[in-house]
């Protein structure tokens, strides 16, 4: 029986999130002290060697990102924590921030020291005002205890658009502009918030850092899948027995996640499909359940790890409804900046609705596929590029025209 391994969730249910002394008693803020005793380049090298890759979806090596920001010229640099958590079915960042806010703040301060940034922002999902309160309380305590030194953190509340989770749209939003992605390059490490070198990192990514600094890169690199070491926090939703969050090493398979941790399909029904990574993720058939929940392993089967949401569907779900709902989500969330996304999501939704009503034809599926394939390679940002994934994977692995239980 595989076991959970709690690194970022290590303090859950063990400490009071609103008591900084609890956190400090649990070895909190000592890694930050240790980090500050190291030369910046050595610290960055240590993080790079741990192999930690971003947990926000893009999977970029975090140490590398710090190195770029460190070497970029700038009189001011910023650390931005991406806590927008907009993917439906995902709530792992909320759990982390609610149960252990100081781990995130400490991770930010470590990054701040590493790259020479004295200011951090936490961009907190607009629907999480109570989380922002916890974060603000934690920041106030950290200031009072003077554990952050020069480093200052501020919480910004998001305005509710999914696209604002995209790092450059997030930056625009903090700057008070329309939440829309920017052209890349330049990437944020070179020109980010107010044009200054900026690290944008996910909550879970940041919460890993104190442990990596404390226990060393070798310890971390040995956990889980080699190319994407460490653990992943997953949120199980849909037709599983245990709808809960777990933290498991990244070499755990999807099958283990659903059957060992999730307790299998609820009501004794049969498995039909699972979607991982939120609405942007692929819809995965039974034949691929042996895939590890690691970045590259998922990419190899045409799926994504994304945010780590695991949405399980049993045999009674009509996949046509599922993809239709997702198409509607993207039609609603497209920021509208680029043509293939704003027009493509609208047309995909139209066609999915038709298919969902049982009126679809093979030509409709072919057109859906054509739009999807174009969006995936031509849209301006990750939202539009990923938007067709559920539809494309559903077409690939299932017979959508047949509908329910069509595997």
């Amino acid at each position, binding site marked *: 029986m595989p076991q959970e391994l709690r690194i970022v969730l290590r303090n859950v249910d063990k400490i009071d999130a609103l008591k900084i002394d609890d956190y400090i008693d649990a070895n909190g803020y000592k890694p930050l002290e240790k980090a500050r005793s190291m030369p910046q380049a050595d610290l960055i090298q240590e993080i790079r060697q741990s192999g930690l890759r971003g947990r926000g979806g893009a999977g970029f090596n975090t140490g590398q990102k710090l190195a770029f920001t460190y070497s970029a010229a700038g009189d001011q640099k910023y650390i931005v924590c991406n806590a927008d958590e907009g993917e439906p079915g995902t709530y792992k960042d909320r759990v982390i921030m609610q149960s252990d806010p100081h781990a995130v703040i400490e991770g930010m301060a470590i990054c701040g020291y590493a790259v020479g940034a004295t200011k951090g922002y936490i961009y907190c999902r607009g629907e999480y005002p109570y989380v922002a309160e916890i974060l603000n309380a934690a920041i106030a305590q950290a200031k009072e205890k003077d554990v952050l030194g020069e480093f200052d953190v501020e919480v910004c509340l998001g305005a509710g*658009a999914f696209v604002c989770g995209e790092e450059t749209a997030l930056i625009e939003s903090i700057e008070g502009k*329309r939440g829309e992605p920017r*052209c890349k*390059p330049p990437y944020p490490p070179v020109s980010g918030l107010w044009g200054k070198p900026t690290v944008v990192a996910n909550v879970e990514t940041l919460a890993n850092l104190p442990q990596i600094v404390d226990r060393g890169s070798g310890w971390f690199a040995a956990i889980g899948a080699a190319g994407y070491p460490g653990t992943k926090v997953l949120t199980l939703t849909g037709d599983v027995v245990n709808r809960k969050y777990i933290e498991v090493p990244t070499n755990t398979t999807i099958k283990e996640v659903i059957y060992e941790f999730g307790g299998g399909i609820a009501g004794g029904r049969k498995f039909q499909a699972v979607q991982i990574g939120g609405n942007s993720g692929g819809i995965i058939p039974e034949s691929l359940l042996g895939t590890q929940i690691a970045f590259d392993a998922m990419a190899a089967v045409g799926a994504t790890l994304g945010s780590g949401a695991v949405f399980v569907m049993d045999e009674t779900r009509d996949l046509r409804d599922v993809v239709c709902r997702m198409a509607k989500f993207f*039609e*609603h*969330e*497209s*920021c*509208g*900046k*680029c*043509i*293939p996304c*704003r*027009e*493509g*999501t*609208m*047309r995909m939704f*139209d066609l999915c609705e038709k298919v969902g009503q049982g009126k679809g034809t093979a*030509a409709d599926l072919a*057109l859906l596929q*054509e*739009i999807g*394939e*174009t969006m995936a*390679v*031509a*849209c*301006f940002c990750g939202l539009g*590029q990923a938007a067709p994934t559920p539809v494309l994977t559903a077409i690939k692995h299932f017979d959508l025209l047949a509908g329910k239980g069509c595997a």
Partner: protein
Amino acid sequence: MANLKIDGIAVEIADGSTILQAAQAAGINVPTLCYHPDQSVKANCRICVCEVEGQRLLQAACSTPVAGGMVVKTNSAKVLKARRLILKLILAHHPQDCLNCTRNKNCELQTLAEEYGIRDNPFELKLKGYAEDNSTRAVVRDQDKCIVCRRCVETCSVVQTVNALCVEDRGSDIMVAPVLGKSLAETACILCGQCIHACPVGAIHENEQIDEFLAAVADPDKIVVTQIAPAVRVAIGEEVGLATGEMPMGKFVAGLKHIGIDYVLHTNFTADLTILEEGNELLRRVKEGGKLPMFTSCSPGWINFCETFFPDLLDNLSTCKSPQQMFGALVKTYWAEKMKVDPSKIYSVSIMPCTAKKGEAARPEMSDSGFRDVDLVLTTREVGRLFRMSGIDFDKIQPGEFDPWMGKYTGAAVIFGATGGVMEAALRTVYEVVTGETLADVNFTAVRGMDGIKEATVNLAGLEVRVAVGHSLGNARKLMDQVRAGESPYHFIEIMCCPGGCIGGGGQPITKCNAKRAERIGGIYVEDEQCPIRKSHENPEVKQIYEDFLHEPLGHKSHQLLHTHYAPKNKSIL
């Protein structure tokens, strides 16, 4: 320098260039819609996507920097498939209205639809169903045709710093619209029409008044008299298949008579007159301690801007009306007297490079002749359409001549069409008037060209006069902020609302880039060189009008007919 391969062609190009620039250097045309050569990269239409070896995603040519060793395919099957689908997506959400559109045969979207052979579209046609915004007298927005490229927004906010347009809503409901859900007339829009040039499609256009014109020429009771603004000749050829600058004035006059105009006169005449009035006004302000710096006042978009954004500095504006309005006031008084015609029968049409002139002519105060001074303003583009409608072959037509009393002009008036021209014309005259000497060289090249702000110092018999020239309102704003802060070192400032001056006006043939503006400016100075007289005060008809009618610059008659005052606009939206 970076070395790369585009469709198998080796290209060497400066680091920091884009794939689009590299492709152009290799002689390959990559399609664009949101790209504008003088603007920031937007990369939102995605029509320019290309394949780059080793990259899973297609890359937008307009925004992707080149790298050494890059291998680019601009027309692979994958690329063409994406572009054609994107075009179909646009067209299925766009009025199928080419036949009725102001941009028919001159539309970037239509051209691409043709080039990519878009025949049948699998998507159901959906229209957004917005009403046309014709709230202003000059600029009409046809929102349904907007492809949300945002080029107009950048022009309005960055080039002109007016901020009348913005991006609203999201997803497929996204739109570019006047700010705060207002009609265009309620915003700070100053009617310059620069957004029309920025627009790749027919979503913004001039308020077209061809029907009014045709009705007037068909009316036997109307004497249709026209004036031609200085910047029109150099560009009108572009409307009828000639190169920039290649319309001889005589043929232009003949063309206008052919479309039914009874008398053809020239705004250049009142441009020369403006120099005498404005030059003397400047000298008076300098001598008598009047408000300085004095700003030129011939550009109505600029006047609107000043009234809207700098109402506290209106006293710095010259009181001279624009040449169009001076002409309007004189044609129904002085000219009617000379020609012995009933001024109430005169229908005064001006041919302008400008959309804002349509608004200016309609200002209530512009009726000092006792009638509406200017009855109708047609833009260069509208006259182009009239020429094409009437089937004139400009290769074969015999040149015509201007009618008397208000048709003669000098090179100084010709250069009013280019940024710096009014300043140069004024300096030619003021210098000779003040010093009593003849200028050895009439060319003041320091104030010419496309630089945003130009300055010069001229010694007038011991008086150092400092002048500045700004074109486009972003540059005007810089000069005005200086004045407001009490830090302006200048005596006299020329402002033209449009980039490049009137040759780049909102009514000119669609002008995508500043390079075209520079080309027209070249044509203007060639025409100036060819003029036998190049100083306004030497214009014989101008001398005549002072002898017979006005008597002296800034005199009683001038005051009555040629000068005006402006008032704050008090736009609540600012």
